[in-house]
């Protein structure tokens, strides 16, 4: 019985491949496009081409480019955190709220204590990691499904953020040096974008170049098999959730510096686009969750939304676009999974 379970997908794959080689030129072509690992890049080119023709003056400007780069950097950093958790098999739904909490916390601490900005950032970071630690104990020690545990923690964090702000915007919490940390440029590139690149490089190195990355993917794909192969799966799972918390906290600090103000409503809306990017990314480059695919996905989504906004589209477009992208990406990922080349890492 186990045997039919394994041979079945391979049969489907080869049958599908044989079919691709055969009849129906149009179907053939469309199949190829949807199977290719670089679809997002083509879509990106199409989006850029379309808006360049439609609204060349506003879309094709360095300002727009910079805004896209910088605005999406926070989404990108959050997506990297989500990716770390997903790769170890946990679904983190709390990172948006965590970023929002981190943002108001760093601003509030800055307002209350006029000490070194770095100290304040470190304190914020430590508190966020502590909360991530609580989540991981709930998930790893008490075996609560990560999706539920982080959903609960997201609400707790939102509540805490509201308690800190008392419903008002914190405006006095950020010094000019702190704001420079989030605004400004390095070599002409927005700083937040540079942070994303550095964070992306680090996460990529850990996942793809270090033994730890292998252990993470193995844990995410089959925890028991990984454990029997000598992987300390509990540690890996804790690490995945802590990594997500750490990057969410960092994103929140960047956000506070960038915006200069902090409010409790900023964080949660980042959840969906980042999750969408991770899943869309898992259909790109490699047949599993990966850093480059995720970052490309972040920017494809951001470019599309920015273009629509500049074309005068209404405000509902952003939610709609992100949601649709998530649904399509997850459908594609699961379709492939059924065909036997399952993406490693999280399965919601």
């Amino acid at each position, binding site marked *: 019985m186990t045997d039919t379970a394994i041979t079945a997908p391979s049969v489907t794959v080869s049958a599908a491949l044989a079919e691709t080689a055969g009849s129906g030129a149009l179907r053939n072509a469309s199949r190829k496009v949807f199977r290719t690992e670089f679809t997002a890049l083509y879509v990106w080119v199409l989006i850029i081409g379309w808006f360049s023709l439609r609204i060349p003056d506003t879309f094709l400007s360095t300002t727009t480019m910079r805004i896209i780069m910088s605005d999406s950097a926070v989404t990108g950093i959050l997506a990297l955190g989500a990716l770390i958790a997903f790769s170890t098999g946990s679904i983190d739904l709390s990172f948006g709220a965590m970023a929002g909490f981190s943002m108001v916390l760093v601003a509030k601490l800055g307002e209350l204590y006029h000490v070194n900005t770095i100290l304040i950032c470190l304190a914020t970071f430590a508190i966020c990691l502590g909360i991530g630690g609580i989540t991981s104990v709930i998930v790893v020690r008490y075996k609560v499904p990560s999706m539920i545990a982080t959903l609960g923690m997201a609400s707790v964090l939102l509540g805490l953020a509201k308690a800190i702000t008392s419903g008002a915007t914190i405006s006095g919490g950020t010094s000019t040096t702190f704001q420079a940390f989030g605004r400004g440029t390095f070599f002409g590139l927005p700083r937040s974008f540079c942070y994303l690149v550095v964070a992306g490089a680090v996460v990529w190195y850990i996942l793809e170049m270090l*033994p730890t990355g292998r252990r993470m993917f193995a844990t995410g*794909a089959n925890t028991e098999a990984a454990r029997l*192969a000598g992987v300390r799966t509990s540690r890996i799972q804790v690490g995945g959730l802590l990594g997500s918390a750490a990057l969410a906290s960092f994103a929140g600090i960047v956000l506070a510096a960038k915006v200069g103000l902090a409010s409790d409503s900023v964080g949660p809306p980042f959840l969906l686009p980042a999750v969408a990017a991770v899943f869309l990314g898992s259909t790109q480059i490699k047949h599993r969750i990966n850093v480059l695919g995720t970052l490309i996905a972040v920017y494809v989504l951001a470019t599309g939304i920015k273009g629509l906004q500049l074309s005068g589209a209404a405000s509902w477009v952003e939610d709609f676009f992100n949601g649709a992208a998530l649904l399509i990406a997850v459908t594609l990922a699961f379709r492939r999974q059924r065909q036997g080349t399952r993406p490693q890492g999280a399965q919601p």
Partner: protein
Amino acid sequence: MLTAAAHALSIEGLSKTFGSTRALIDVDLQIAAGEVHGLVGVNGSGKSTLIKTLSGYVQPDDGAVASINGTPLRMGDPVAAAEGGLRFVHQDLGLVDELDAVDNYAIGNGFIRRVSGSIDWPATRARVTEALGELGVQLDLRRPVGQLSASARTAVAVARALVGWRDGAQLLVLDEPTASMPDDEVGRLFNVIRAVNASGLAVIYVSHHLDEVFELTQHVTVLRDGRRIATVPTNAVSHDELVELMTGGVHDPSPTSDIALSTSSPVALAATSISTSLLRSIDIEVRVGEIVGVAGLSDSGREHLAKALFGAIPRTGTVTVGGSTVAADPVAAIAAGLALVPAERLRVGLIVADSARANLSLPRIAAYRRRGRLHRASETADAAELLHRTKVKPDGNPERIVATLSGGNQQKVLLARWLGVQPTVLLLDEPTQGVDISAKSDVHRLLREAARNGGLAVIVCSTDSIELAELCDRVIVLCRGSIDAELLAPVSADDIERHCLTDAREEIRS
């Protein structure tokens, strides 16, 4: 047209072919009205296939004729089987552990409802109480069935299978109902079966435990290699004769391993007082270069031993490798030179969505770290070498996704992974289950080579007696959690089966 001589169930000429394997060959089976009929046979004799064709989930080959109480039955059709009055309780019972007896009873058969459509709980409970009462069972209807005793759970499953049986049920099939049942509960289950039988229902009782067959049945049918060997009145046959019928002496004594094991070889692994939920204080020793087999029926503890020694499941007792104690934890076990090839390779063995290379390197991935990063080239080279050595088909490509390999080749990948770690002791659980003949002989060859040339100590836990007879220097037979016998090579598959079937409980009872 019912006659006094009508059989509760009559089957003639039943065959079933799976590919090139003939699982059932021209089997006839007659169950007299109102009797309890035993069905016995060693693993692979065709018992399960016979039950599945009866329940309609396996389509038999053409030519089989069956009838229930004289009424023709179309085989291979679950609906026809149910309507004809065949009822089944399978080994796993099919209960939802979290729900209570009332829910489990009513969920498939309908709750009693009020006019408004809401469930009439008192009436439903009364019905369940009555149904269980007919079986002579009383239990707390509000407890989740997962918390009930094994015999009570089986009673719930029997009651559910027999819903409305006064109207239509003709025959109840119990498939190894005592496999995971403590000794003291077996008697209670027998009372349930006798209550069913007393009201005129025929029962087919499938079991590995021959003492149960002797206690309960009027006739017994023996299957071997897909054929019906005999149907005899139970009181006309002795225990030894029945074993003889089941094993048949068809398997030759094993060709002993070609290279003799040095008698002076040192002890590689010593385990003392190993206990788990199934094992009771087992002591075991394996010497360098030795292959030790572990046989036993299901729930004998055989399925726990390899995992327990490796620390994959909670255990008590001491395991020492090369003189030093090993903690009950996979990481410590691997560090000490233990390796485990688990039974369910897809569920807990391999990461099937990943490449062969990544699966092979996982336990020693840290060793590939050079100058701060993974050295992919040496990882790939090692993988290719292992795949070549273990003859993984079709191409030995390290990047091949494991899910696209056949069962036999997946098993070779798993074996190659652990051979690559160069362990001191290799623990295997059902190493050739669901594996084709050629991969099976490859696996056996690899194990012999690793043991004799590589000095590996090997423990093979298997339900395949022929495999154990061919492969092992020594076979330990487990029974109800304890070591029942230790057989030295040359040992025949027959001997192993015989010892598995003759368990300690029988001696106590008789």
